[in-house]
Each structure stands twice: as structure tokens, then as C-alpha cells.
């Protein structure tokens, strides 16, 4: 066979032209993450939660720029005030308080009834304000003195008459002025007559009095509610500082505290899981990749840390790190959380790595000459990302819970730094009389945790490979 017989056509060595398909019927190729995000976006519950979470984040970060009230500023005139959504509380401007001589009247002639009858015609001398309440009643014959009681609920049906305010000088003094610690609310005043032996009659007259908040013009200026007293005249109404969500038991603005409290709760809730999951990734992937004895030893250590009773050790570590004066105690909590929580993501990642190590694409990549570091960072860790992300979303609510729990039992952030948990702790004491102080922080914790849980559920479904390609 000679070479002359072989005819080579130079055209045969030209690169082939890419043939364009006349028609292409295929779905656009979706990467894993595109597919997951598409499925996530089709999940209404997860998306609603996402919107709530973004709203919470805005509330936390941008809130204090809009609502410029300090979380530690006390408004002593509005303590434990319920939420006022529309109008602000107002105060009536009155003349400066003048001394009141009281009213005297000669008792009608005649012997005292035995037993003494009830006081009649108990009435207000002038409209009741927080500046003072002046009571007048008709004299009874043969009475040595009258005792005045005040209560915050109706003393009818044999309930206690309340706080004994005082006693009149004698039977001729038939008036009483109460200036003791008045707040704008309803009071029940009861007047009881005393006989000559100083024994109270068993019957009383009661008057319900609705008290109006009032200040004198000078007082209003002194409290910073008005610039000057010139334009203020008696009968005017002056606006008090607004507290849309009310105030707590020290008169601190609840909205401002919720915003600052959210900073603490969200900060710990996001940073701590990020930290311990990062440690978990490093530790777990090292253990899973190295394998053998080292893996056994590393995992034994993780098991030990997991066996520690979590909340007890959170408390122990928190006191071990200590809180210096003026510190909020956020940092020790962060460290304690990280120290105690890393083993569970580490185990998770190790399990994933062990599984992925045996996959065909790893072997293929190794055959193609991939180095270990490349394998770990290009194939193994990205493929565990889905599981890690889900673990992260579920870790956030549990950390928020832990923070709230610790702050609730007084082991969390130290006052005056607010956190949702410590606000609940304070709110629970006044739960019966002022439920809003508990309801608001509790609702914020619950809604945030709920949103994270639902979002985590949605994320888990979206990242589940078995669900891939489904609508």
C-alpha cells in the first residue's frame, strides 16, 4: 500500500460548522439554586414570612431613626399607660393651686341617730383634677368627725373601702381635700361618720370621681411640655409626649424599647447561629474528611459538649464570663451560645460530608486530578449548603428563645438595655393590671419566631432534592 493511493482532502480537516437545530424542545436548564428559589417563591407561607422578617429588620434598623425616643427615658407622668393609637394624652391647664379652707356647717339640731345614719349629699366642690379633689357633704347631727376613704374600685357589696385618707377635725368640718398621688383615673371616695366614742358607723356614702389630668402653666413648662407659660391660660389643653404603644412600669416608651430590644434579640439571633454554624462547618467537614481515629476523637468531644445540660451551662458560662459595670451582657451570651451550640451543626455537616465523599462525582473529580482542597471547597461544602441553610433558619428562632428565656429569668442582658425577653420579664409583673406591657414584647417574639419557622419549613421543602423540578 503506497501513500500515493491515499487521497486526503484538505477540506476534511476544517473545523465542522456548528449545526443549528431547526427546533429545540427542552426546558431551560435550571441550576439547583435557581430551582430552589423558584420553588420557594411559589410558597405563599414562606414568602409571607420573608416579608415579615424584612419588616422586622427594618423596624430594628430604621425604626430608631424614625421614632426618636430614647429607650431609657422615663416619663414619670405616664407610667404604665395603655397604648394610645390616635390622639396623645392631654392635660388641662389650671390656675396654680390655692389653699382651701374647707367648708364648715353647723350640724342640724337634734340627737344623733343610734346607730349613725349614712352621710348624705356627698358631692364634688369643684371639678376633679389631678391637682386635687375637693369633697363636700351635708352634716349629720351628733357626729364627732368624719373619716374619708379612697379606693380604685367600687367598694360596693362589702368590699374594702380602701385607703383611709384622713379624718375631719370635728363634726362641723364637712369637707375634705385629697391631693395624695392622684392619677387620671376613676376613684371611689367613701365618707363614714364617727360617733362620740370614735366608733365608725357601719354605713357609708360613696362617690365615684373621674379625675382629669391637670397642671398649672408653670408646671407644664418645668416638665418640658411647653416652651413658655405665656400662651397658656387656665382651661387650655396641652399635649403630653406621645406613646403610641404605651409605657412600661417606669414610664419608658414601649415602642422605643421594642425597637432597641429587637436590636439585641435579632443581633444575638442572627450572629450567634452564624458563628456556631461556621465553627460547625469547619469542625464537621474536617472530621468527616479526615475520617478514621481523628474523626472518632473529634466526634467524641462533640458528643461531650452536646451532653452538657444546655440552659444550665448557658447560665453557668454567662456568670463565668461576668458582666462588668455598664456592659449589656450581649457579648458573654454570644460566646456562651457559640461554645455550647457548635456540635450539632458539626455533626450534621460531618454526616453530609461522609455521604458526599462516596458520591460518583467526587470520584470523577478526583480522577480528573482535583486536589483535596478543591474537592472540599468546590464540591463538598457547596453541596452541604442546603442542609446548613435550613439548620441556620431553624437555629435563629431557638437562639431568640434562649435569649428571651435567659433575659426572662434575669440572666440575660442587664438593664437598662432592653431585650424582648427582659421586657416580658418586666411585663409579667404587671400582667393583670397593664397587660400591654407583656403582650407587645411577647407578640414580637412570637411573630418573629413564627416567621423564621415558616420560612425554614419553606426553605427545607425548596432545597429538598426529591422535590426537584416539581411545581
Amino acid at each position, binding site marked *: 500500500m503506497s501513500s500515493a493511493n491515499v487521497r486526503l482532502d484538505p477540506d476534511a480537516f476544517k473545523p465542522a460548522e456548528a449545526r443549528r437545530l431547526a427546533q429545540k424542545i427542552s426546558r431551560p436548564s435550571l441550576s439547583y439554586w435557581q430551582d430552589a428559589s423558584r420553588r420557594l417563591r411559589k410558597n405563599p407561607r414562606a414568602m409571607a414570612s420573608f416579608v415579615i422578617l424584612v419588616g422586622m429588620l427594618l423596624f430594628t434598623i430604621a425604626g430608631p431613626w424614625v421614632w426618636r425616643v430614647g429607650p431609657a427615658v422615663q416619663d414619670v407622668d405616664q407610667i404604665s399607660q395603655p397604648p394610645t393609637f390616635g390622639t396623645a394624652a392631654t392635660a388641662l391647664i389650671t390656675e396654680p393651686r390655692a389653699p382651701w379652707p374647707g367648708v364648715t356647717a353647723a350640724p342640724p339640731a337634734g340627737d344623733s341617730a343610734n346607730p349613725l345614719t349614712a352621710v348624705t349629699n356627698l358631692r364634688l366642690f369643684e371639678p376633679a383634677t389631678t391637682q386635687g379633689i375637693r369633697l363636700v357633704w351635708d352634716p349629720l347631727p351628733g357626729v364627732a368627725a368624719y373619716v374619708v376613704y379612697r379606693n380604685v374600685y367600687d367598694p360596693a357589696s362589702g368590699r374594702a373601702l380602701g385607703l383611709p385618707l384622713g379624718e375631719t377635725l370635728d363634726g362641723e368640718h364637712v369637707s375634705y381635700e385629697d391631693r395624695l398621688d392622684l392619677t387620671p383615673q376613676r376613684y371611689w371616695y367613701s365618707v363614714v361618720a364617727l360617733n362620740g366614742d370614735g366608733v365608725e358607723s357601719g354605713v357609708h356614702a360613696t362617690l365615684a370621681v373621674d379625675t382629669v389630668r391637670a397642671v398649672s402653666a408653670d408646671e407644664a413648662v418645668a416638665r418640658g411640655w411647653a416652651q413658655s407659660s405665656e400662651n397658656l391660660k387656665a382651661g387650655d389643653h396641652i399635649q403630653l409626649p406621645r406613646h403610641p404603644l404605651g409605657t412600661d412600669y417606669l414610664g419608658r416608651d414601649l415602642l422605643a424599647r421594642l425597637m432597641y430590644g429587637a436590636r439585641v434579640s435579632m443581633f444575638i439571633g442572627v450572629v450567634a447561629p452564624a458563628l456556631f454554624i461556621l465553627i460547625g462547618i469547619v469542625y464537621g467537614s474536617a472530621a468527616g474528611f479526615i475520617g478514621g481515629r481523628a474523626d472518632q476523637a473529634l466526634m467524641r468531644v462533640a458528643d461531650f459538649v452536646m*451532653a452538657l*445540660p444546655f*440552659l444550665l451551662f448557658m*447560665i*453557668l458560662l454567662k456568670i*463565668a464570663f461576668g458582666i462588668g459595670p455598664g456592659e449589656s451582657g450581649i457579648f458573654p451570651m454570644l460566646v456562651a451560645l457559640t461554645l455550647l451550640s457548635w456540635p450539632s451543626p458539626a455533626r450534621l455537616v460531618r454526616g453530609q460530608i461522609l455521604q458526599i465523599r462516596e458520591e460518583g462525582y467526587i470520584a470523577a473529580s478526583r480522577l480528573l486530578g482535583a486536589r483535596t482542597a478543591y474537592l472540599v471547597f468546590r464540591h463538598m461544602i457547596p453541596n452541604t449548603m442546603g442542609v446548613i441553610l435550613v439548620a441556620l433558619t431553624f437555629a435563629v428562632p431557638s437562639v431568640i428563645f434562649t435569649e428571651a*428565656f435567659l433575659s426572662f*429569668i434575669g440572666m440575660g442582658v442587664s438593664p437598662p438595655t432592653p431585650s424582648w425577653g427582659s421586657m416580658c420579664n418586666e411585663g409579667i409583673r404587671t*400582667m393583670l393590671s397593664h397587660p400591654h406591657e407583656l403582650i407587645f414584647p411577647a407578640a414580637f*417574639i412570637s411573630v418573629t419566631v413564627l416567621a423564621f419557622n415558616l420560612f425554614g419549613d419553606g426553605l427545607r421543602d425548596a432545597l429538598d432534592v426529591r422535590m426537584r423540578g416539581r411545581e
Partner: protein
Amino acid sequence: MFAYTVKRLLQGIITVWFIATATFVAMHAVPGDPLANNRAASEEIRKNLEERYGLNRPVLEQYGVYMRNLSRGDFGISFTQRNRRVNDIILQHFPVSATLGILSIVFAALGGILWGSLTALYRNRLPDVVIMFLVILAISVPSFVVAAIGQLGLVTLNSTFGFTVLPVAGWGTLSHMLAPSIVLGLGTMAFLTRLMRSSMLEIVNADFIRTARAKGLPPARIFLRHELRNAILPVITVLGPAIAAITTGGFVVELVFAIPGLGRFFVEAVQQLDYTVIMGTTVFYGAFLVFMVIVVDLVYGVIDPRVTLK
């Protein structure tokens, strides 16, 4: 089985040793010293107290004494309560916590199994949707809020009826235990309901259920003998961690409902920096949890014939 039990117990003992050591280290890292709250008025009293509590010895020796005492089950004497041994405190207050915990576990397990199988039976229908919504809600509300709401509910209940239907706080009779154990068990119940639902949904589609149905067994029998018995197994595996969650969650409930349990005592001890009580309680709780997990694992091996313990 026996060899497995011994192995697990040995592992448990090593774990408890680790917990005890970690507790010791953590407590010795606490700033300040146990005699700081003005009890050591003068230098002499201070010396005497240090002698009494062994605080003037080297740390390693203290550790040795601590471990020796622990191995004999002696947790030491309280720092703040005069002449009270930590063992007495635990003996007196732990039964209260344990009673509360057992009641809540029973409540949580029964409720979780009931609601979980209900949701699976009515899958994607109204009962399922309603119950699963409540479950998500129960998981998302912190235990102290549930406790507070429960208490508020009791107050309203009592005032509408005009007499004490259920006491709002305190401890003693069964009626005292009812409300706190329900509150304490609620979160765990929600968790178990979810678990039970998914395990039930898996079982319902299993081959042996189809066989049972094909045999013509009555639905009630299929449900009780075939579905329920198999679906409960995963619930039992998580009872160990659930016990841990309930015993530590008990702190708050004990605090809110004024129950004289060990959890409340621990919180008080921490606030007063009562070193021995803190260490004793932590080690005791740790050991309790470790062995509870072992017991649950062993029980699981007994009731599930597919599991071989080795």
C-alpha cells in the same frame, strides 16, 4: 443486650465526669469569690470560712476533693443557706420537679400521639389545617408567655365562676399540678404532633397496611394494631431529648407558678452565687439527662424488634 447496657452505662459515667469537670472549671472561672457578699466581715472570719469550705487549698486539690465527694454522691454544703446540704436541697425539691416533668411528658406524649394521628387521618382537610396551625403557634410562643397566658386564663376562669376552680399558683394537690404541667408540656406536645403526623403519613402508605386492608380488617383494628403501633416508634426515640427540654423548660414554669421545684432553686442559687448548689444541681441535672437518654434508648431496643443493640 447486657454488654450493650454496660457499655452505654460506662459511656454515661464518663460523660457525667466530663460534665462535672466542665462545671468545676466554669465555676472557678466566675469572677469574684464565694465569700464576697459581706459574710467575711474580718480577715479572721474569712480565713475560718476558707478553711471550712476548703477554699485556701490549691485548685487541683479542690478538684480532687470535689471529685472524691461527687463519686460518693456528696455535693457539699450550701454557701448561703446555713447548714443545709446540697443533697438535702436536691432530695427535697427534685421530686417536685420530677412530678411536674412526668405529668407534662405524659400529657405531651398522649396529646402528640392523638393530635398527630388525627392530622394524618384528616390529611389536608379542616382538622389537619387547624391543628397544624395551632402546632406552629405553640412552637413559636415562648414558654413563659404560655405560662403567663395560662395564669391569666385561670384568674379569669376563677373570677367568672366566683370560686377557685383551679389554683393560680402554688403546689400541693393534683389541681395545683394540672395547669403548670399542661403549660410545660405544650411545646413538646406540638413538636411530637408534627413528628407523629409525618411518621403516620409514612406508615399509612406502607405495604402491610394495604395488605391489612385487603384482608378486610376493620378500620379501627388497622388503626390501632397496625398504624398506631408502628407510628409511635419515632416518637419514643425523641422522648429522651424531650425529657431534657421539659426539665429545663421547667425553670420558667416553676418561677411563674411559684412551684418549689429544683429549677426555681437553681435560678435562685445563681442569683445568690451559691457555688455548691449551682455545681451540685448542674451535675445532678446533667447526670439525670444522660441516664434518661440511655434508658430511652434501651427501652426502644426492647420494644422495636428491628433494632439490635450492640
